[in-house]
C-alpha cells in the first residue's frame, strides 16, 4: 500500500481541530499507517462548516491518508480497545488538556506500562506546567498570549479591538509540523537505541519559536532602544492608554525605520512586492525606476511611479536585475498558477463520499524513499469494524458496542 520513509510505522492519533490532525497527515503522507480515533459523533472540525453530513473541507485537508475508528473514550470497554490496539503501535499522537488523558487511561504512564518503547507525542495549548496549564486554548488565544497578536498590531477600524492573524492559523499549522518533526526525531532515536519516550510540544512554545529574536533578550543589545521603548509603553498603559494607543506607540518605535524598498506597491493592474535587502539590490531598483539614489526614501514618489505600469512590466525589469520581487497573488488563484502546475504540486484524490478533490502534495520530496499520491480523508468511523475485527471482536460484539454508543 503505502510507500515512503515511514512505511511500516503505525501511529494512533487522538486529535481534533488543526495541529495534531495536520501532524498525522504529514506523517501519513510519508508512509505511516495512521489510525485516527474520533468520538462517535465526529471530532469538532468535521462539524465546523460542513458541506456534506460530517464532512468539512478543513477536515478533509487535514486528515487525508488516515484510517478512522470511532470510540467513546470515557467508557472502560473503549479504553480496553485502545490498550489492545497499542500492542501494534509505534507512536501515540495526542492533543488534550493535560488532565484529560489520565481520565481516559491514555496518559503516557498508563500506555508506556503496556508498551515500553512507545513514542508518545503530546500537544497542549500552554504547556503542562504553570498557572494556565489547564486552560483550554485555541490558535487565537495563543496568538494573544504569545505576543503574535500585539506584534502584528492589526486593529479593527470600527471598535479598536485587536484582530487575529487570519491568513492562516499560524500557531496551529506550524505546530502540526513541529509534532511531525518531534515524531520522526523520536523514531530515529528509537531506531538507534530501542528507547521510546514522551515528547512534549505546545502551541505556545511553537508561537514563541516563530518569533525568535523578537522575544530574545540581551542587556547589551536592548539597553539603547528595546528596553526604554518597553518601559514607555508600560508607563503609558499604567496611565490609562488604550490598546490601540499602545499598539500605535509600539509600531512607531519598532517599525519607524520601514524600508521603502521592502514593501508592496500598487501598480496599474494589481500590486507587487519589492523586497530588496542589500544596498546593491536597492541601487538596482533605482536603475529600474530610472531614479537617482538620493530619491531613496521618497515613498510617495515611488508609489506614484509604480502605479504607472503593469505588474508584469515591472517584474520583467526587476527579475532581470535579480531583485527579490513578486506579484501579489490571492490564495484562490494558486492551485492553477503556472508555477504550481510546472512543479506538479497539486495531486488529485477521490473521497469516498464527496468525490474528486485536488490538494497540495506532501511537504517533502525524497529521491530514494519516494512517496505515493495520498488517498483522501476517511468518512467518520469507516474503519471501525475492520479494526475491531482485526483485534478478534466478533460481529455480535461489535454490534453490541454500537448499540451501547461506544463506537
Amino acid at each position, binding site marked *: 500500500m503505502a510507500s515512503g520513509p515511514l512505511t511500516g510505522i503505525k501511529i494512533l492519533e487522538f486529535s481534533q481541530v488543526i495541529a495534531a490532525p495536520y501532524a498525522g497527515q504529514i506523517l501519513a503522507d510519508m508512509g505511516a499507517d495512521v489510525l485516527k480515533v474520533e468520538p462517535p459523533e465526529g471530532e*469538532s472540525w468535521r462539524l465546523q462548516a460542513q*458541506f456534506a453530513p460530517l464532512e468539512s*473541507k*478543513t477536515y478533509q*485537508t487535514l486528515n487525508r491518508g488516515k484510517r478512522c475508528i470511532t470510540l467513546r473514550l470515557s467508557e472502560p470497554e473503549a479504553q480496553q480497545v485502545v490498550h489492545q490496539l497499542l500492542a501494534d503501535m509505534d507512536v501515540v499522537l495526542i492533543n488534550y488538556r493535560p488532565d484529560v488523558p489520565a481520565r481516559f487511561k491514555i496518559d503516557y504512564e498508563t500506555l508506556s506500562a503496556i508498551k515500553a518503547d512507545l513514542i508518545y507525542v503530546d500537544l497542549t495549548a*500552554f*504547556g503542562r506546567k504553570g*498557572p494556565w496549564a489547564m486552560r*483550554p*486554548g*485555541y490558535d487565537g*488565544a495563543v496568538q*494573544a*498570549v*504569545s*505576543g503574535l497578536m500585539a*506584534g*502584528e*498590531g492589526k486593529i479593527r477600524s470600527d471598535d479598536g*479591538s*485587536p*484582530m487575529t492573524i487570519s491568513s492562516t492559523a499560524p500557531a496551529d499549522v*506550524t505546530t502540526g509540523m513541529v509534532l511531525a518533526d518531534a515524531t*520522526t526525531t523520536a523514531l530515529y532515536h528509537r531506531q538507534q537505541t530501542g528507547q521510546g519516550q514522551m*515528547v512534549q510540544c505546545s502551541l505556545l*512554545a511553537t508561537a*514563541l*519559536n*516563530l518569533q*525568535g*529574536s523578537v522575544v*530574545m533578550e540581551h*542587556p547589551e*543589545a536592548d539597553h539603547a532602544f528595546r528596553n526604554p521603548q*518597553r518601559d514607555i509603553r*508600560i508607563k503609558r498603559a499604567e496611565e*490609562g492608554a488604550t490598546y490601540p494607543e*499602545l499598539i500605535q506607540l509600539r509600531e512607531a518605535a519598532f517599525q519607524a525605520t520601514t524600508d521603502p524598498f*521592502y*514593501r*508592496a506597491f500598487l501598480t496599474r*493592474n*494589481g500590486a507587487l*512586492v519589492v*523586497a530588496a535587502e542589500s544596498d546593491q539590490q536597492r541601487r538596482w531598483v533605482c536603475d529600474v525606476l530610472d531614479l537617482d539614489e538620493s530619491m531613496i526614501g521618497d515613498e510617495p514618489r515611488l508609489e506614484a511611479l509604480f502605479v504607472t505600469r503593469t505588474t508584469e512590466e515591472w517584474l520583467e525589469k526587476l527579475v532581470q536585475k535579480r531583485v*527579490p*520581487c513578486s506579484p*501579489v*497573488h*490571492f490564495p484562490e488563484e*494558486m492551485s492553477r498558477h503556472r508555477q504550481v502546475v*510546472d*512543479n506538479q*504540486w497539486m495531486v488529485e484524490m477521490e473521497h469516498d463520499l464527496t468525490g474528486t*478533490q485536488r490538494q*497540495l502534495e506532501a*511537504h*517533502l*520530496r525524497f*529521491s530514494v524513499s519516494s512517496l505515493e499520491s495520498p488517498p483522501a480523508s476517511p468518512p467518520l468511523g469507516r474503519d471501525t469494524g475492520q479494526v475491531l475485527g482485526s483485534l478478534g471482536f466478533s460481529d455480535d460484539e461489535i454490534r453490541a458496542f454500537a448499540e451501547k454508543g461506544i463506537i
Partner: protein
Amino acid sequence: MAGIYTGIRILELCNDMAGSFAGQICADRGAEVIKVEPIGGDPLRSVDSYQDNESKLFQSLNRGKKSICVDLAASDPSALMNKLVASADVIIMGLQRDQTTLYNLDYESVHSLNENVVYVAIDYFGSQGEWAGRPANDLVMQAFSGMLASEGKRRDNGTPRMIVSLRMAERSTGFLVAMAVSTGLLHRSRSGQGQLIETSQLKNLLALQGGRISDNPVADEPVRSPRQEQIRALRQRNAPFREYLGTAANVLFGNVFYRPYQTKDGAVFMGALSRPLRDKARKALDSDYLHRDDPNYDPENPEFVAYCIEQAKIVVAKFRHKTTAEWMAIFEREGVPAGPVLFPEDLSTTPQIVDNDYVITVDHETAGQQTQVAPHAQFGLFPLGQLQGSPPLGRDTDDCLHGLGFTAGETSRMRRQGAIR
C-alpha cells in the same frame, strides 16, 4: 550537549533564516553543526548588529553551532570543501541551485564524494517553472503565496502591508527542514541509504493555507469557485488592485465568539468554537445572543445580519467595562478558552512561560548572557541542558581544518590567499 543527534555531523550552507533555524534545531539536539559562512559572514550577522558581526537575529538562529569562514569562489577551496562534504552525515543546503552547481556542492557532486549523505535542499519557488532559482525572501513568499493579500492589512490607499510579527515562510520551513533531517536519518538508519530531500518555501506556505489552496468542487461551489471566477475576470481586464478587495464574502458578520476585544485596560481574546463552549461564553458574557446557534440563522437575510451586528456592538461595549484580569477570571470560572493580549517584550517574565522553561539562558562567548526561546519540543529522555550561544565569525575554522587533516602550514597558506578566515 548530549542529545539525540550526538555524533551526527551536519554541514549548513545558507544565507537566510530557514536553513539557519533548522541547523539550530539540530544543534539543540546534540548534532555537531558546522556553519559554512562567507568571509564577510552570514548577512544576518549585520542586521541591526550591536557588535561587529553580532546581531540578535543571528544569535537567535545559530546557537550551539561551529562557524567556519570559507570563500567558495576562491581559487582553491575545493580540497577543503571536498573533505568537509565527505565527512558530513547531513547537508542543509540553503544556497540557490546555480551556486551549488558552480561550487560543486549540488547533490550529484556531493553524492559522488559521500554516498550515504542526507542532503536537504531548500528552494524558494521549487525546482521547476519560470520562477525557479529567482532570488526571494520572506516578503516575496508572503506575496507569491497569497498570504499577504488574504491577511488584509492595508495602507489607506489599499496597498497591502506585510505580516511583521513572524516570518512565516522562513520559520515554518525551518521546522520542515528539521523534520527532513530526522526523517532522512531515520531512513538511513533503517536502510543504510542517504538521499536528496527537496523542500520549497512556496509549497510550504501554500500547504499551511490548507483549504484556501485546495480545490474541492462540491465544497467550493457556494463561495470559493465564484471568487476564483471573479479573480480570473479581474486579471483578464487588468483591473486595479482595489477592485479585488471587499469582494470576499463577510462570513464573520456579528460573530462575537472567536475574536479579540478591547478591555478597560488592554485587550483579551475569547474563542469558543463549539456549541457547548459558546453556551459557556454566553454565560460568561451574561448574554442570550445566539448568532450561529440561532435556529433562524440566515446570513442572506439583511434584517438578521443587521440584528447580529447590533448584538455584536453590545458585546464589544461590555468588554470595555472590565479589566483584562477581571475578564480572565470570569472566563476561567466558566471554562471559556481565552487569553490576554501580551506584548512580545513582556513575555520573558510571564509566569506561564517561565514555569514551562520556554525561555532559557544562553551564554555567548563575546556578548555574555542572553535570554532566548527554548527548543519547540521537549524530549523526555533528554532534559534540556545548558545551551551554548552562537559562534563568533570563523571561530572554528582552524579546529575544523585541523580535524580534516590540514597542516598548520596549509591552513595559513589558505588564509593568506583569502580562501578562509
